[in-house]
């Protein structure tokens, strides 16, 4: 099986890789590029743990082929903080203890970032439906929703 050569942008950096035609972008990120922040919870787009942003669209990287990233912009959890300065969402997740085991956290942060980019002042219901594609088994979502609400108000003020 012939590999596909891909040239793409990940977290602002130009990246080139060779992948198999049936290899998912999630596998490329994790296994070829060492970006293990996106997690595989299901591999079928049902848990959101592998969420990334692809050309300003929130997607599950397990449902994207590595080959499809050619010429596109990929944003992952590894690019969310600016240097040692955490994104407000990251900070608020810490302050609100919006994570217990933390496996779903990168996916939630990426999804919440996308949500606030499109809707800077969401209601609780909008947050809940906006994050419905991300499963969390530990928290019951309460503290996640509060962290997003708090981050939204901080980001509006900024």
């Amino acid at each position, binding site marked *: 099986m012939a590999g596909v050569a891909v040239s793409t942008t990940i977290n602002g950096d130009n990246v080139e890789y060779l992948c198999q035609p049936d290899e998912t972008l999630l596998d490329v990120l994790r296994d070829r590029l060492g970006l293990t922040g996106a997690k595989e919870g299901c591999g079928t787009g049902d848990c959101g743990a592998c969420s990334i942003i692809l050309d300003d669209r929130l997607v599950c990287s397990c449902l994207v082929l590595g080959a499809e990233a050619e010429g596109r912009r990929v944003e992952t959890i590894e690019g969310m*903080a600016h240097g040692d300065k955490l994104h407000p969402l990251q900070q608020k997740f810490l302050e609100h203890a919006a994570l217990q085991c933390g496996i779903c956290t990168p996916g939630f942060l990426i999804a919440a970032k996308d949500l606030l980019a499109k809707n800077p002042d969401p209601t609780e219901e909008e947050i809940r439906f906006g994050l419905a594609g991300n499963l969390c088994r530990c928290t019951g979502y309460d503290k996640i929703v509060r962290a997003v609400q708090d981050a939204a108000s901080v980001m509006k003020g900024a």
Partner: protein
Amino acid sequence: MNFDPRYSARNFASVGTRPIRPDGVDKVTGRARYGADFNMAGQLVGRVLRSPHAHATIRKIDTSKAEKLPGVKAVITAADLPDLTDGDAAMYDILDNCMARNKALYDGHAVAAVAAVDARTARQALKLIEVDYEVLPHVTDVDEAMKHTAPVLNDTIFTEGLEEKPVKPSNVTKRTQYGHGDVHEGFGHADFIVERSFKTEQTHQGYIEPHACVANVSSDGTADLWVCTQGHFVYRQHCAQLLGMEASKLRVTSSEIGGGFGGKTHVWAEPVALALSRKAGRPVKLVMTRDEVFRASGPTSATSIDVRIGARKDGTITAAEATLRYSCGPYAGMWAEIGAMTAFACYNLENVKTVGFEVLVNRPKTAAYRAPSAPMAAFAVESAIDELAKEIGMDAVEFRIRNAAQEGTRSSYGPVYGPIGIGPTLEAVKSHPHMKAPLGKNQGRGMACGFWFNFGGQTCTDLNIGMDGSVSLAVGTVDVGGSRASLSLVAAEELGIAYEQVKTVVADTATLGYNDMTDGSRGTFSSSMATISAARNATKILRERAAQMWDISVDDVVWEKGHATAKGEKHGNLGQLSLKEIAGASGKTGGPIAGHSELVADGAGVSFATHICDIEVDPETGSTRVLRYTVVQDAGKAVHPTYVEGQYQGGAAQGIGWALNEEYIYGKDGRLQNPGFLDYRIPVCSDLPMIDTQILEIPNPNHPYGVRGVGETSIVPPLAAIANAVSNAAGVRMTHIPMSPPRILAAIEAERGG
């Protein structure tokens, strides 16, 4: 040694505050490494071949074609994991579950495994393994499996615990009984009796992280295992025993764990990964798919429960009994027994009797799931309690308060209770504003109580004081939900220093003594006790060193607020020495300063919770909506209240999912129909309201700070609380969990029709 665990009241400086957890930044930046995030040079990909049959004899396995496939480095079957369990029946079951020997006992049972250079080759190799199955009749339903006509899974099983030993084998491995008094007489005094049968379907812990490990067996007989687990010391023991290794030669490192809830308390594929690595001579990474997680790892029991409770007009329960049948998967368990012990634990009963039956079925091996077995029993009992209160005409909370267990009550499982929290949770619920909030059309409110034992167990910590005065705390209980923050707080509290000066890590099995796993709500309870003990041992050394520095007797030195202080008139001018100052001089006063602790943290203290919820039911579709939810639970002492709230909320959410939608669905062919997050429906964010919590603090007399376990109890009341709310909203008593819309609609229609 000589550690006094008894509670004494004190004012806390650190405990009870809510700092950011030490592992937090790694987890919000994607740097934390979980089971599947670790790799080794030259590692192979391991994959497991699983039975497509619910029950089949394995006549022959031909692996020759797979072995010849280029890129395949090892193929194993049960022959590569011979039985070394030496009569240890529980370990034999774990072994057989890891790799089927003579029979495949459920859809998904491992029968062979391969290690190959990449995932594609491994997948191809699995297809080349030829298994000759003789398909046998199967049974997946707990009630069906008890019938004498049911296919028998294991013909060496003769029901234990019967007065006469049965002459024929059956699927019932054991009968157990608990209780006291005379229920027959008790029912004779009852004015009202409620009798109902209930069923609950099988659910999965549903952790988001699939089981994952990297195994590396060296030709010198030593090995390393990186794995997501709730107990790496336990995994080490299991793996060492199953592979015939010395425990000390197997070093197990627990990765960050992406949820466990009981499902990562014993090994599943880890021995397989080690066996593959041993055969291939290379590291092997084995990660389960989600499908494999559902089909072949730890669900809880499906149950069938009959309950009968009688009470006098004045609201006093005169007798209570229950028969509980719990599925164990294909291997003997004690799940019904735990159900039988916990069922009536909230109540003060003169006459009580519970009987449990452990039942084998062709489903995956039942594993612990958060307060295992208690939620189903509570569902049945608390539903009947609600119904009985209605018949008597008493308020549901009042009825429970009247019959609640208290200090001195003989528990339904035997012992007499010490100070307990069921009464206070009920009183808190009674006066909670939630109970008075108005309800709309098609809305109902329910409440229910729950009980769980909580465990202690073997625990070991090392507390090392650096020369700069900072403290590293090594613990051996895996952090499943923020315990490193709690344990740092405890170390800071005991030493009298700032939280930020302490860094807690989870040590691997080579660098710390044995620890039982993080189960039974014991992580923070046990490790905090060991941490206090270690810190006190360190403080003793700190005092000795300060005494040396001052050249006075250690008896004249006390430890207060992070400082050594010289006591007595003649030392009035000595002032204080800080921990940092003493640590800085440690090279001259006797070397490194550390405190160790090895103990059995017993006396965990039982735990109670009472939950309230409001549910709206759509009477045309049977659809439900959770409008409001409140958890009241006793924490003993909340070390890090935010993470205690998190445990309450998380348990409630899991219980809500179980109550409403989660279930294993088997086809007539005995195969699991919904092994994925699409059709195994755990609650999503938009399904839930905020979950309010109220932490009660009734100190545990057996912990220096009064801490109780908090992790599990919160999953016990929700099934019943929601069932009671649905019943109040829809006017029908729901007796089958989950109360999925088709079940609710059918019940409503039946009520209308009949």
